[in-house]
Each structure stands twice: as C-alpha cells, then as structure tokens.
C-alpha cells in the first residue's frame, strides 16, 4: 500500500526533528531520511519580512498531488511537506520537505523533485517588505525554477 503523505499549510513554525521522528520512530525499514528546509534569506539586510500569500484549499490540494506523484515515482516509507504562510522574517523557516525510504537515492531524489515541483506548481507567492519602508514588491518567478522542474519530465 502506498504511504499517505503528511501535508500541512500553516502560519506557525515547524520542527524538522519532530517531523523526522514521526517518519522513523518505532520502524526498522527506514534506511535514509532526507530533509530540506527552505529559509527566508536576506544577505543584503534590506528585508523586514517576506509575506507569503497562498490559495487556501488549492495549496493543500496541489502539495498533496505533488507528494503523491513522488510516492508513485520512488519507493518511499514516508513523506512530509509543510509550507508556512504569512509574514516570515529573515532567518526563519518557510518550507520543509522530509522524505524517508529504505534507500538513500530514492530519499534524495524524492525530496529534490518535490522542491522543484513545489516551487513551480504550489500556489504560494512571496512579497518583499523592506526595511526602508519603500513600496513592497512581489518576487518574480525565475526561469531556472522551470528548468529545474523540467529535469523530472
């Protein structure tokens, strides 16, 4: 039976260790666990926060579709995707993907695939709020994200 992914779209922060433990505790069939954490970055020191807007309902539905696609492609023992929304200050967590499998290559590829598809298909949009108080602006989609996603087709 294929595993059921755990999907959450939430404002509060997540705990990557607790999520990993949910996929491994009490089991002996997990040989590899790959965890990806995406954080709010601000090297230039110009941001007060990124504001994440999402499409409630579709965000969960699309993340579930992407997760199920990954489960169909790789022999996973567990898969968790958490995406935050709302205002997120620099240094804070935005997204978490945890993929567990008997085998390391499956766990790596599933997590990598999931992030590529999430970037281009999950209905979230980032707006930058500036320290300067200037007009906040929407982050533009990058062509490289489409290229990354195209690696899996």
């Amino acid at each position, binding site marked *: 039976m294929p595993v059921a992914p755990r999907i959450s779209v939430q404002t509060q922060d997540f705990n990557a260790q607790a999520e990993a433990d949910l996929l491994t505790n009490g089991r002996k069939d997990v040989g590899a666990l790959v965890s990806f954490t995406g954080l709010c970055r601000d090297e230039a020191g110009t941001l007060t926060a990124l504001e994440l807007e999402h499409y409630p309902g579709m965000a969960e539905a699309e993340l579930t579709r992407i997760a199920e696609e990954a489960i169909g492609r790789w022999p996973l023992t567990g898969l968790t995707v958490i*995406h935050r929304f709302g205002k997120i200050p620099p240094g804070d967590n935005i997204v978490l993907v945890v993929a567990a499998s008997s085998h390391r290559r499956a766990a790596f590829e599933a997590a990598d695939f999931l992030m590529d598809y999430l970037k281009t298909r999950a209905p979230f949009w980032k707006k930058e709020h500036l320290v300067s108080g200037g007009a906040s602006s929407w982050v533009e989609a990058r062509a490289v994200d489409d290229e990354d996603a195209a690696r899996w087709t």
Partner: protein
Amino acid sequence: MNIRYFAWVRERVGIEEETIELPGTVKTVSDLIAHLKSLDEYHASAFEEEDAIRVALDQVHVETDAEIGDAREAAFFPPMTGG
C-alpha cells in the same frame, strides 16, 4: 461562477473574490479572460500581460484553452514563487 485573484493580479483587480454570471458565449478560460477584461479598467489592467497569468479551475492548474465546463471556481494569479 466564483472568481478568485491572488498576488499582484488581486492587487490590480482590487478585490480578492467575486461572483460573476457567465455569458453563454464563454466556453473556455480564454473566453473568460476576454469577458473579465471587458468589465472595467481594473480587470483590463490585471490581464494586460496575459502571458504572465496562470489559471486554476476548481483548484487544478489548467491552460487557457481549457473548457470551463462545470467548474464552479476559477482563479487567476502570477507564476508561483513559494518554497
């Protein structure tokens, strides 16, 4: 039909959500976009760069040539930038 807007599409239209009676001539997403553009200058401005806009019908991504069929909700938004 329920219409939703997100990110800068929402800001240009000026509303998050609206309910619209579709004329019988509106069969596809393209037809719907043409109809919305005709409503007022805000809609026209939001859909000005039509290629930059993505569409979902009942929360599933579709192309603009998709038939609207029985869909109850259409959503318009820029390319996604989550993750």
